[in-house]
């Protein structure tokens, strides 16, 4: 990540020098930094609400039953996570919220799942295989109905704004399979530090 980040920063400056757009950079830098903070703080409300609801659901035993329901699938995807881990319930709720297109709820559930997975992480600061797979899954959209795209198509006067549903589902499925397969195949290329190694 460090190398990629420096590559992006240096690359941008070099390209800006070549294309003569250096004057646009200072503004873009300040604006981006501000936007990142706005994005983060924009999460406060929904994070607070859904983390509270999640705790209520946990105490009521809902999270555990959901985790148990999805266990046959999750056990294969996340073999290193104990079957009774609360992470399983959070992962299930995240995936369900994503499929329904409830992005606001999906993010807090996902963060909760990452926290639970972090409890079983022998090297804090470095992603486990389970965390890497879970994040990759979240970057492959599994949304059943891409509502914002359909709304744009309707606004543009499409004959049937939702006629792209089947194609979208098919493409989503391929992206999801690619996420799982490559996270699994690449895990040995990015070894975790040996147990007990000092934190980098």
């Amino acid at each position, binding site marked *: 990540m460090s190398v990629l980040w420096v590559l992006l920063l240096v690359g*941008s400056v070099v390209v800006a020098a070549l294309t003569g757009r250096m004057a646009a950079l200072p503004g873009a830098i300040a604006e981006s930094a501000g936007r990142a903070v706005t994005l983060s703080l924009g999460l406060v409300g929904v994070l607070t609400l859904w983390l509270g609801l999640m*705790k209520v659901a946990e105490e009521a035993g809902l999270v555990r039953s959901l985790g148990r329901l999805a266990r046959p699938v999750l056990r294969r995807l996340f073999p290193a996570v104990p079957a009774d881990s609360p992470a399983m319930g959070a992962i299930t709720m995240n995936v369900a919220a994503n499929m329904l297109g409830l992005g606001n709820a999906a993010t807090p559930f996902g963060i909760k799942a990452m926290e639970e997975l972090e409890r079983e992480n022998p090297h804090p600061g470095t992603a486990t295989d389970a965390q890497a797979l879970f994040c990759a899954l979240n970057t492959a959209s599994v949304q059943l109905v891409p509502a914002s795209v359909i709304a744009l198509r309707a606004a543009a006067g499409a004959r049937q704004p939702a006629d792209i549903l089947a194609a979208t589902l098919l493409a989503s499925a391929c992206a999801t399979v690619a996420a799982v397969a490559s996270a699994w195949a690449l895990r040995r290329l990015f070894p975790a530090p040996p147990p007990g190694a000092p934190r980098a």
Partner: protein
Amino acid sequence: MLKGALDALSIWAIPLLVAGIPAWALTRKVKVYPVFVEGAKEGFQIAVRVIPPLVAVVVALGMLRASGAMDALAALLAPLTSAVGIPASVLPMVLVRPLSGGAALGVVADVLRSDGPDSYAGRLVSVMAGSTETTFYVLAVYFGAIGITRYRQALPAALAADLAGFAASVVAVRWLFRGVP
């Protein structure tokens, strides 16, 4: 019919969950209100913890876009991508989608206007936007929230998912809309 049901679902789901979870918990003798407040406490800290990684990622990507690197890359890639069935107007989607959700929807709106929603390009750009996610944002938020700075295979796997999603979009649109004007 199906669309009506799905629309209703997306409207009803959140209110029903917000009311239903506490109601169910109450029947299970959970002290709903104090438990909610206890769980909700974390929300603010998590959002604040996400700030540093998100600033790092968003600034780098903002610089990249302002530098004109996207246009240069688009010019470089155009012959290649048009050969595999991605029209020049749709190419910005491939470049922008992993970086910014808002910009990606902007590209969708542009292509729908320039090529029409019922054209090949219009359908392709819609399917691409719907089948992939804002990769860098998702990674920065999820890993940032728990202080992970070494992503290991997560980034290449996430980008592979984006690539697969784009490729599958081309195939799916060609196949499902074969012969459709």
